[in-house]
């Protein structure tokens, strides 16, 4: 028992010395900060200003502007002239709608200039929402125009008189307004509020939970290779000690308790969970800890080198963050694989708890966590196997040595040995010094291969440029002709990806949230001309495009409704029932009067074109990954061995300078590798930002490792600081979408400064360069007084 307590005490000391304190502080510091950003109105998606250029100035255009002023999503509608477009966008207007002269009148002749929407790309999230609303309305208008022309030409023949054209314009305008304003009534729930803020909270919360649990477990086992190499474990056992590794896990549980208590309090306050569900969360939390502990224990034991194991773990954690899509965007892994990701499991569990599902229903979603547990056991088993094998080989050594001694008589054998040594020196001969240093720092051949694999994965992430579609599940409860028609039309929409599922699978799909949500066509949809509340759309746990999807569906449904109402429209125009020949003519005209010229155009101004909706820029992914990777690499500077070498180098003229420059070149090389792997745009601003950001990371991480922290302590701190910088720098979300002072927050973070630099801001990289140089200088020890010469 004394031995166990001693091991517990030793582990506690090791944990805190190796940066565990920072891992512990991580949720305590970050979570409140994070919630502060998103609290109340300051974090939610705010109503935003838009501008209108009314060159038409007809009753129709004025009615449209009045309707726009009543839309809650628009805080202000500024009426401006064509010359003020750039100025308005600079001021923060999300979009400018230009209605050209005689637009509504000429549009019904398929003539004239199209209406134009100019979007402000600096406010990307709001722009995307505005675009989807605008496109939806324009599609309805297009359909209405086509239908009105077909109906009027059926009623009055090929040539319309002036009065008939006037009537067409008035009737169509009236119908258009009616269709546009009522387009959302098709949905069962009236609430159309964007779910962006909540979805982001869920994404980041699940990622934070994963990062905390994984990094605290990693901190706990990071001393294992050293302990095993130095024979501390076997000596402990020899002296009768028991539970060397159990003490580590118990300490892990103990140290993670405050965060568990905090999480339970949060869940209780936020979702009013029952004691049963809180207990379930506590069990899940501890199971996660056990899984990560076993996994990292197995990994560190097998790899046997702390630095290599740490680099590998950090790469693995980041690949999970990137590819399972809970932090940055929709997952790049097939869902069948992504569901095994701990981040996905966290998200599913949080969503399940929020929805109040019972533990029995949630249990199957937690089971994939067992994969980590099994992997850990497998790695540990492999470690035991290799240990046993090497000890058996050691026992055979006298025999083998005897053989070797005899064999050394033969020159062939000796030659082999010399070749082996020369082979090991081969890279020293061939590689320039900084590259050789990089090779060693990355963990030699195995490390470099892992590094290359990591870059291949990154390249895969960056290379996937397929147009992101809004994917959702569809449940067809109706099964009638109209619902089948809707399904066909939705399927034909380029921006949508639909998968039909039976109703029983709905809850599971909503919980996993691998697609945006579930659209249900309710019973009685077919034949209901009013179509009120006949569609139900439920967002998935990580949905960010609810509004966009609803607008697209609404436009499709409104279009179908217009088509279906053609007979009634013609009948009301003629004042009688329509005949069979008129019906045939109407069908013919419906096909004939199709618009060929565009009714509207959308153009983007004030920013780079985004490839994906609601996804951060690749520059943000770059900043995030590079921060953690280089920080992890720079932690070498804090190791005792490196500190001793560093101190000795100061006694050699010019050595410290060469050492620092060599190391910086390694950092720069890795930065460039990340740059190319993520396929960032090659421009002066991007390269200047890359250089300044790398210098900052180099100087800052060295400063922390050499001057501020003890050996290994920077791992935990870098996690905290890195996430804080990424969060406040806007790596995870577009701050331009938020209101108030929050949008200026990126200027306080190096990640934000880097991102600003890539956008063309020259002050931001200058600040990074200055901080980088200052921290480099302060981490570079020099005696205060040099000896004189004789």
């Amino acid at each position, binding site marked *: 028992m004394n031995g166990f307590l001693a091991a517990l005490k030793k582990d506690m000391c090791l944990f805190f010395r190796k940066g565990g304190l920072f891992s512990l502080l991580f949720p305590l510091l970050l979570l409140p900060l994070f919630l502060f950003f998103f609290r109340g109105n300051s974090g939610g998606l705010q109503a935003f200003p838009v501008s209108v250029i009314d060159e038409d100035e007809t009753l129709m255009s004025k009615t449209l502007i009045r309707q726009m002023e009543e839309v809650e999503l628009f805080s202000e509608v500024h009426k401006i002239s064509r010359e003020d477009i750039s100025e308005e966008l600079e001021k923060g207007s999300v979009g400018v709608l230009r209605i050209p002269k005689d637009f509504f009148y000429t549009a019904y002749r398929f003539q004239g200039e199209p209406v134009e929407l100019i979007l402000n790309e600096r406010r990307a999230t709001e722009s995307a929402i505005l675009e989807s609303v605008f496109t939806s309305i324009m599609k309805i208008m297009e359909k209405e125009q086509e239908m009105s022309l077909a109906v009027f030409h059926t009623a009055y023949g090929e040539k319309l008189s002036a009065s008939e054209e006037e009537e067409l314009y008035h009737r169509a305008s009236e119908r258009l307004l009616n269709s546009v304003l009522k387009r959302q009534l098709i949905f069962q729930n009236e609430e159309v509020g964007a779910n962006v803020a909540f979805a982001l909270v869920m994404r980041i919360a699940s990622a934070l939970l994963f990062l905390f649990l994984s990094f605290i477990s990693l901190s706990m086992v990071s001393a294992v290779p050293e302990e095993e190499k130095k024979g501390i474990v076997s000596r402990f056992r020899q002296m009768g000690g028991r539970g060397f590794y159990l003490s580590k896990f118990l300490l892990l549980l103990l140290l993670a308790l405050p965060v568990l208590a905090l999480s339970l309090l949060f869940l209780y306050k936020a979702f009013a969970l029952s004691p049963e569900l809180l207990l379930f969360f506590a069990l899940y939390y501890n199971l996660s800890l056990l899984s990560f502990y076993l996994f990292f224990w197995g990994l560190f034991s097998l790899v046997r080198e702390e630095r290599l194991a740490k680099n590998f773990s950090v790469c693995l954690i980041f690949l999970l963050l990137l590819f399972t899509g809970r932090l940055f965007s929709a997952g790049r892994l097939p869902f069948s694989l992504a569901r095994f990701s701990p981040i996905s499991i966290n998200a599913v569990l949080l969503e399940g708890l929020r929805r109040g599902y019972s533990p029995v229903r949630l249990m199957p979603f937690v089971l994939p966590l067992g994969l980590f547990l099994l992997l850990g056991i497998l790695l540990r088993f492999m470690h035991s196997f290799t240990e046993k094998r090497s000890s058996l080989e050691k026992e055979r050594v006298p025999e083998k040595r005897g053989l070797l001694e005899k064999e050394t008589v033969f020159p062939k054998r000796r030659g082999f040995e010399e070749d082996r040594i020369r082979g090991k020196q081969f890279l020293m001969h061939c590689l320039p010094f900084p590259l050789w240093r990089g090779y060693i720092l990355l963990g030699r051949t195995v490390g470099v291969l892992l590094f290359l694999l990591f870059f291949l994965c990154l390249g895969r992430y960056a290379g996937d440029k397929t147009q992101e579609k809004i994917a959702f599940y569809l449940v067809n409860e109706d099964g009638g002709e109209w619902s089948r028609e809707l399904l066909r039309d939705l399927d034909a929409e380029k921006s949508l990806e639909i998968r039909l599922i039976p109703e029983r699978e709905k809850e599971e799909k909503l919980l996993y949230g691998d697609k945006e949500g579930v659209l249900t066509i309710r019973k009685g949809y077919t034949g209901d001309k009013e179509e009120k509340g006949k569609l139900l759309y439920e967002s998935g746990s990580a949905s960010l495009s609810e509004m966009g999807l609803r607008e697209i569906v609404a436009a499709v449904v409104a279009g179908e409704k217009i088509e279906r109402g053609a007979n009634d429209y013609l009948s009301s125009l003629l004042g009688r029932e329509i005949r069979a020949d008129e019906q045939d003519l109407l069908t013919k005209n419906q096909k004939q009067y199709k618009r060929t010229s565009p009714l509207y155009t959308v153009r983007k101004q004030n920013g780079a074109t985004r490839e994906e909706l609601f996804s951060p820029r690749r520059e943000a992914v770059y900043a995030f990954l590079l921060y953690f990777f280089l920080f992890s690499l720079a932690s070498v500077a804090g190791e005792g061995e490196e500190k001793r070498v560093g101190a000795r180098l*100061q006694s050699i*003229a010019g050595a410290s300078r060469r050492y620092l420059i060599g190391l910086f070149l390694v950092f720069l090389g890795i930065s460039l590798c990340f740059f190319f792997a993520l396929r960032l745009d090659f421009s002066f601003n991007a390269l200047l930002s890359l250089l300044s950001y790398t210098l900052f990371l180099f100087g800052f991480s060295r400063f922390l490792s050499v001057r501020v922290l003890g050996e290994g302590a920077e791992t935990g701190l870098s996690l905290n600081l890195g996430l804080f910088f990424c969060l406040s720098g806007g790596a995870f979300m577009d701050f331009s979408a938020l209101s108030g002072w929050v949008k200026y927050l990126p200027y306080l973070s190096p990640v934000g400064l880097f991102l600003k630099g890539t956008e063309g801001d020259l002050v931001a990289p200058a600040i990074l360069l200055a901080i980088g140089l200052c921290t480099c200088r302060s981490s570079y020890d020099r005696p205060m007084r040099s000896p004189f010469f004789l």
Partner: protein
Amino acid sequence: MEEQICEIRNLGLHYQRGGRAVLKGLSLSFHKGEILGIRGENGAGKSTLLKALAGLLPYGEGEIRFAPKVQKELSYLPQDLSLYESLTAMENLYFYGKIQGLPKKVIFTRATWLLRELGLEEKAGERLSTLSGGMKRRVHLASALMKRPAILLLDEPTVGCDNESYERILSLLRKMKAQGTAMLLISHGRGELEEMADRIVYLEDGKIRE
């Protein structure tokens, strides 16, 4: 009389402002090719003197004067091993050679010669973590000799060495002396100062006692 290459005058050093003086008005000089032994109790200031000479510690009082170009040809070997355990013996020497700006060809020739002299030729490709304590000490000394030094500051170079390592190290030091390298040698060891040093000084409470 050999040429004087270093002179220390009234050297005074405090680790903290107003704190205890580690070196008090210490004066000393030594010549080309001379081995100066320094002996003293723990905490007498021997390592501090060497660090001050190596330019690693700022000193408050007095002065240290070197002959022209000698300061750039000074090599300091601390007591703690300042080598990378994960690198091989040859890689460690390559690192120290490169960091001193030597060309690759010179580095490999020099490192091979040093390893041969120290009896480690066979161990060149082995990681330091797999070598014995004495072997590590030998590699440590080799790392200080990658660029031929004018002055070699040695802080207990044979501590923890077995007989073979001890003999190899002393033999190499003798060769260096013969080539004109001056040495300042600190040791608590088995009479190596008596065996090697031309002159031995005693350091007591930060002052020299000849």
